[in-house]
């Protein structure tokens, strides 16, 4: 038993209506596969971890209200103190314009 083509086409039409796809019995290229593709931009853009709020940011926002505790910063200050005790810290900031060096031609 063979099914007539017209009947098969009718079936295809009904199928397309039910599943909301485009009816295209000749198989003409209509580019619908591009429209069917999912967008991958959001997934790609979320690859690298974004910046989170740091202790410094919290301090800047809630400085007078909230007491924060920054361990890394305290470690840094401690290290600087240590350097100062050994006399190895950074020199003092100069005030005023630098003295003109002798022997330098204009």
């Amino acid at each position, binding site marked *: 038993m063979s099914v007539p083509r017209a009947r098969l086409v009718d079936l295809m039409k009904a199928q397309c209506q039910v599943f909301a796809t485009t009816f295209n019995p000749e198989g*003409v*290229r*209509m*580019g*619908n*596969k*591009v*429209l069917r*593709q999912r*967008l*991958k*931009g*959001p997934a*790609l*853009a979320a*690859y*690298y*971890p*974004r*910046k*989170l709020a740091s202790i410094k940011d919290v301090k800047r926002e809630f400085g007078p209200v909230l007491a924060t505790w920054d361990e890394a910063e305290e470690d840094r200050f401690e290290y600087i103190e240590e350097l100062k005790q050994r006399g190895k810290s950074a020199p003092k900031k100069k005030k005023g314009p630098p003295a003109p060096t002798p022997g330098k031609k204009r």
Partner: protein
Amino acid sequence: MSMFRAKKLDLGCFVKARTIRDHTKRKVFEEHETERQALRYMIRNTTLPPRVRATAQMQLSQMHAYTRPTQIRNRCIMGGQGRGVLRAFKMTRVRAP
């Protein structure tokens, strides 16, 4: 390119110039993806007039390189390496430098 780059750094991982560049490309691609897909649809649709399809082709090829998904490359989030990056871990197969 610099016009796409974020004015303030918004990355929380290991950062080097190439990481920032890749991140910028990702964001630009996300922004322009729908436009690219629309043009691709027009190019592939043979029922449209040939002239329309040709112009769509031109427009797609004239878009900036940063809107292209092939420009994106997965990089290591610990060391910024571009080679031998395991997708599941986002890290290189060797220890981060």
